[in-house]
């Protein structure tokens, strides 16, 4: 039989690891594989990604300008260039209103043609030619009706969805960056730096966020940027605590000691050793932070403190739905979009949490 113990050195040949897999998979790759096995979460991620990519091309889906116009043997691209109405046989040198039945007629005659987006309204297009008063119920012209200013609800939903997701993404990225930096510094250097930073965070987090936002909203012209800055300034602290705790735990592990003994600098140790080992909690939190950010934007818009009224937003649509209770075509689709988006994010978050569960690695 095979000897169990080889002589001291001659026999220290490598025996293959007892459970070594054929493919060397990194811990991230293994987590990704576990994520993909979570059917609901993976499906949600795919769905949300597809919807997001589609909404990035919202101008192609919902626009009051045709994509391409062929008029008198010349090509026109109204999406990128503004043409005066006189160009298409109108009377005034104003920008063309392609919803105007007269213009439409001109574009469809004598071998001219125009390729329109599937939904013929942009977020702020007012259909002056709508047959019924605003808010108008769903019709062949406005598939989901119009809001109380005559703007197409479907168009505003598409653009509002895009802004919500982009805003959520930006707020999450900024909040994570700030939180990770702050948490990493506190956790790695610990001691006095940690002590002071913790007190600063305590003072900072006890500031009444909502009132500050109200005050700032009245001081500045409300805009997405102001909202992003204000929410970011207050949104990083919870995450910083997690990263700090992970760093405090990991900095005492022996691989950090070994790295210091090898002569790595503090930043090299943070970057190469501590950060990759401390990010599981951050990643598992991402979808939930994003849904939180989307919800925050919606609430501020609902209260009228968020983006200016011309910007399409789900919160503003909800507020309109509340103001016009009989116009169910405003509130119901908005509600459905919001619930769908948040549900997808939560499902992704659940699956990520399961995939990154440290016990799953055993």
């Amino acid at each position, binding site marked *: 039989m095979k000897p*169990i113990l080889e002589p001291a050195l001659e026999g220290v040949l490598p025996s293959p690891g007892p459970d070594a897999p054929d493919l060397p998979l990194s811990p991230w790759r293994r987590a990704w594989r576990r994520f993909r096995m979570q059917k609901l979460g993976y499906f949600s991620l795919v769905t949300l990604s597809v919807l997001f990519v589609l909404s990035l091309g919202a101008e192609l889906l919902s626009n009051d300008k045709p994509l391409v116009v062929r008029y008198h043997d010349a090509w026109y691209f109204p999406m990128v260039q503004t043409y005066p109405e006189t160009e298409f046989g109108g009377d005034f040198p104003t920008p063309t209103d392609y919803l105007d039945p007269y213009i439409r007629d001109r574009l469809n005659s004598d071998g001219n043609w125009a390729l329109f987006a599937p939904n013929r309204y942009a977020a702020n297009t007012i259909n002056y030619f709508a047959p019924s008063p605003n808010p108008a119920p769903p019709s062949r012209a406005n598939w989901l009706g119009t809001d109380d200013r005559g703007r197409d609800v479907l168009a505003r939903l598409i653009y509002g969805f895009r802004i919500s997701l982009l805003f959520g993404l930006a707020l999450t990225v900024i909040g994570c960056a700030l939180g990770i930096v702050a948490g990493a510094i506190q956790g790695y250097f610990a001691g006095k730096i940690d002590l002071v930073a913790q007190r600063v965070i305590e003072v900072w987090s006890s500031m009444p966020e909502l009132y500050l936002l109200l005050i700032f909203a009245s001081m500045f012209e409300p805009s997405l940027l102001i909202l992003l800055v204000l929410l970011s300034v207050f949104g990083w602290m919870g995450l910083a605590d997690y990263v700090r705790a992970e760093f405090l735990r990991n900095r005492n592990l022996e691989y950090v000691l070994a790295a210091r003994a090898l002569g790595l600098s503090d930043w090299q140790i943070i970057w190469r050793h501590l950060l990759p080992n401390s990010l599981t909690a951050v990643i598992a939190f991402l979808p939930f932070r994003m849904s939180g950010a989307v919800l925050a934007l919606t609430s501020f818009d609902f209260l009228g403190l968020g983006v200016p009224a011309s910007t399409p937003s789900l919160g503003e649509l909800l507020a309109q739905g509340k103001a016009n209770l009989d116009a169910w075509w405003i509130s119901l689709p908005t509600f459905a979009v919001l619930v769908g988006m948040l549900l997808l994010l939560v499902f992704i978050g659940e699956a990520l949490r399961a995939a990154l569960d440290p016990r799953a690695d055993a």
Partner: protein
Amino acid sequence: MMPQTQPPLLDVHALSVRYPDSAAPAVDAISFSVAAGETLAIVGGSGSGKSVTARALMRLDPDAGYGGAIRFSGDDVLGMSARQLCALRGGGIGMVFQEPLSALNPVMSVGAQLAEALVLQRGLSGKAAQAEMASLLQRVGLDDAQRMLASFPHQLSGGQRQRVLIAIALAGSPKLLVADEPTTALDAHLRLQVLVLLKSLARESGMGLLLISHDLPLVRDFADRVAVMHEGRIVETGETASLFGAPKHDYTRALLAARSARLAAPLPQDRAVLLQARGLHCRYRRSRGWFRAAEHFDALKPTDFELARGETLGIVGASGSGKTTLGLAVLRLLREAKGDVDFHAGSGAVAFSRLAGPSLRRMRRHLQVVLQDPFASLSPRLTIGDVVGEGLRVHQPELDPVERRRRVIAALAEVGLGAEVADRYPHAFSGGQRQRVAIARALIVSPDVLVLDEPTSALDAHVAVQVLGLLAELQRRRGIGYLLITHDLAVVRALAHRVMVLKSGEVVEQGTVDAVFAEPAHPYTRSLISAAALP
């Protein structure tokens, strides 16, 4: 009725234990028996299935699948209902766990935990329970029962905690006591005390004792019979004397040889001093509030020593003796450490302890470290190649990736690992293989001094001896000076040339290994050597 054919207390026949998510059974058709008043030791390395066996006796793992038969006092354990099992656990079989701190509930006092066991097992309460608790503590050698019952686990020492656990296991007057590595978390001399206690308890009440351990020489004086387990099977079983006298199986022989090995490389001719420490010390300041003077605690009192090229200096002591502090202080990894460390490079002495910033980081190449826990010392998110190549990135950034990889593979080859491991992640490797990777990580920057902080204490005995052999071979080939920090005298004897004994941060004895082991001068050294039970 025939008096001599009384059935054994515990009879295990062809027991197999299988977990749902693994193909191979954790325990594969093992048979053994324990008679009343008898002590059986089950010995094996990690993953050999010995703890699984212990837990299987009471069916403590709900999702395990069992095969074969376990008979306790004639009752079929595998066929018992949940109610019968509850009576068996604690009442018939008592269990002592390995880690006393985690086996005790930290928010309950000792008295409350002991009372819980008495209420459950014997239905005692009030005065009767109080009296019984005091007598139980007395039996396990804990005096001052009142104070002890009011204490919380964190207020007790490791030995006291283990005694409390034993008292809890005894509360139901079990007929069989299963002790799963009862002494692994304890220092060497506490280890003997606890084993003596278990043995005497078993003898006075006629209990059967099943002792689970990874340390074969340790059980020699305590077990009547020994069963050696390897990879889920019992490979050898027999009376203690005959098993130690004439081990039959290779694995048993390897376990026995592991602790008596002498592997130290011969000292080189020129004994150039490599490292010189003068007045190395470490003092911690403990604040006691704003208006009171701070307390001081000396983790290491001023210590002088030298280390020559190709030499191993062993540093021994119990836990808390300051030996790890000394290692970290030499490496300049402790801010609180003070004193001079001179490193003699080829060109002359460098005051290592005076360097700072980039010059210190550059110099670190010459002094490397191998740490105790092979599972914590490799970052789980880097490949083995990245882990080993890290030193090159820092100290020789001019190397291109191809050359770096060539050197990584050479370093891995030097510690006996193949090139294919470079792309794997640490989780795929066993403890011994990981420790080899940690050695390769230190070697790749060609250090002159290597601090080995308990390099083998997390490894099984026969793996440990391979790693020690590798270290000795590397020393012979490269002339590295080793600072070997360990609590295990067998490791010192295997690898070191000189030894320094630390107690409470102070050097109590030093000399060559032969001299100190043959004639220890200090009583503390003597107690360490006798407690180590060296073969």
